């Protein structure tokens, strides 16, 4: 088995250093060792052979023997538990180390193939050196804890940007809630109490959020906005089909139009809250999206009235009515976000007069801007 010289010259530097427990350097061998008769692969004889032949020959120990030696050295250095064929002779050990790490042979004495065969031996031999039960248990436990920590990290960052809990809560609706909420959106004039109910902690009665829409009519949900958005998309496609100008692009276009409106309104509310220095005691982003989505209910009503074909006057009056209802609903619903009551909010914020009037102006502007969105969306 002749080793090509380029491989041995390119072989990486030896990775294993001699352990300090080991004798520091092998005792010098007698210089006149007959090379052919020695079966132990001593580095000196190897160096001699190299110098004699002019290139490295991997002849002196047979392959299996060298592997055995190497494994012996490895197992004796790493593992005290499973020693399959350990001879525990120091000379062999030292030779194993010197095979790998001797500085005398400048070209490195082919640690590459030996290391590979060693690895293969380890991998396919069945028993890993240094792997008994306790170590395996520790490794498995460490891996489990690392994976759990990673999952926690991912979940924490995931829920920060996508609040799954809030989304789940805002979809928990009942039939009576949906009916009452639809009536409230379309006819908000006679509704008396607009404040949301606080969910108190069962332990100490501290405020820990708002009640779910299942229990509170004034709580915003996402069920009605989602369904209204899908219905609006289909209805606009139907209306354009009735005018015999249906095209499959109409579906995507109206959906993207409505999504753009919802996103834009959400961004406007967020920017207004930032500029007016509204501290985050009110609604979350999910609930703000929900408030923005209630306008689709009125838009659907307008589209249906338009499809029935009553004429321009009926259409205009219905549009103005739904716009007024939606603006009033939004005005009353978003009031607790911008102008928190002292009884509701845990942090008693004292608003100065100019700040309060500015917030009221912003609220009114947001309510009045519904006419733009609804007018744009209801033209199908």
């Amino acid at each position, binding site marked *: 088995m002749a080793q090509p010289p380029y491989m041995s010259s390119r072989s990486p530097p030896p990775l294993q250093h001699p352990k300090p427990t080991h004798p520091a350097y092998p005792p010098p061998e007698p210089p006149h060792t007959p090379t052919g008769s020695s079966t132990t692969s001593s580095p000196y004889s190897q160096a001699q052979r190299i110098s004699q032949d002019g290139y490295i020959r991997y002849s002196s120990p047979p392959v299996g023997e060298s592997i055995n030696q190497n494994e012996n050295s490895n197992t004796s250095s790493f593992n005290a538990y499973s020693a399959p064929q350990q001879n525990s002779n120091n000379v062999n050990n030292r030779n194993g180390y010197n095979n790998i790490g001797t500085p005398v042979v400048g070209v490195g004495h082919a640690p590459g193939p030996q290391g590979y065969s060693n690895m293969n031996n380890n991998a396919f031999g069945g028993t890993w050196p240094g792997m008994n039960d306790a170590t395996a248990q520790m490794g498995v436990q460490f891996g489990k804890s690392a994976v759990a920590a990673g999952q926690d990290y991912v979940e924490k960052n995931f829920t920060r940007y996508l609040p799954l809990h809030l989304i789940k809560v805002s979809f928990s609706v009942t039939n009576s809630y949906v009916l009452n909420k639809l009536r409230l959106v379309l006819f908000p004039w006679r509704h008396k109490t607009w404040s949301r109910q606080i969910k108190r902690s069962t332990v100490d009665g501290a405020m820990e959020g708002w009640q779910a829409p299942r229990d509170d009519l004034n709580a915003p949900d996402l069920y009605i906005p989602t369904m209204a958005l899908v219905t609006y998309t289909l209805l606009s496609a139907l209306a354009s089909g009735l005018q015999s100008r249906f095209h499959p692009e109409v579906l995507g*276009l109206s959906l*993207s139009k409505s999504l*753009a409106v919802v996103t*834009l309104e959400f961004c406007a509310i967020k920017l207004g809250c*930032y500029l007016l*220095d509204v501290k985050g005691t009110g609604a979350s982003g999910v609930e703000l999206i929900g408030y923005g989505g209630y306008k689709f209910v009125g838009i659907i009503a307008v589209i249906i009235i338009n499809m029935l074909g009553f004429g321009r006057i009926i259409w205009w009056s219905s549009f103005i009515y739904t716009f007024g209802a939606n603006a009033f609903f939004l005005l009353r619903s978003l009031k607790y976000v911008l102008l928190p009551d002292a009884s509701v909010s845990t942090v008693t914020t004292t608003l100065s007069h*100019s700040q309060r009037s500015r917030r009221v102006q912003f609220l009114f502007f947001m309510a009045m801007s519904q006419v733009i969105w609804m007018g744009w969306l209801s033209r199908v």
Partner: protein
Amino acid sequence: MIFGYFGNLLYIGLLLTNAIAILNEERFLARIGWSSSTASSSNAGFGQSPNPHMYNDAFGQNVNEGPGVKAKLINLISATRTLMRIPLIVVNVVM
């Protein structure tokens, strides 16, 4: 345009962010009095300032109100210019 109006909205947001990010601190913002350095110094002196009129003069508002709309806008602009400079390069290349 694949996404229709929604993609247009993304484009508008990107262009607006670009427009905020290219506002020059010395040449433009300081000239119209929107420099973030003066705003930050005023905010640092807020509450402990022996002369509350300094804050009044800077923003024309009551001391009890906290930072006003203009201070918030200045803060937003400086934050955008600081934070979005590197990501905007990537986003502009991609879109």
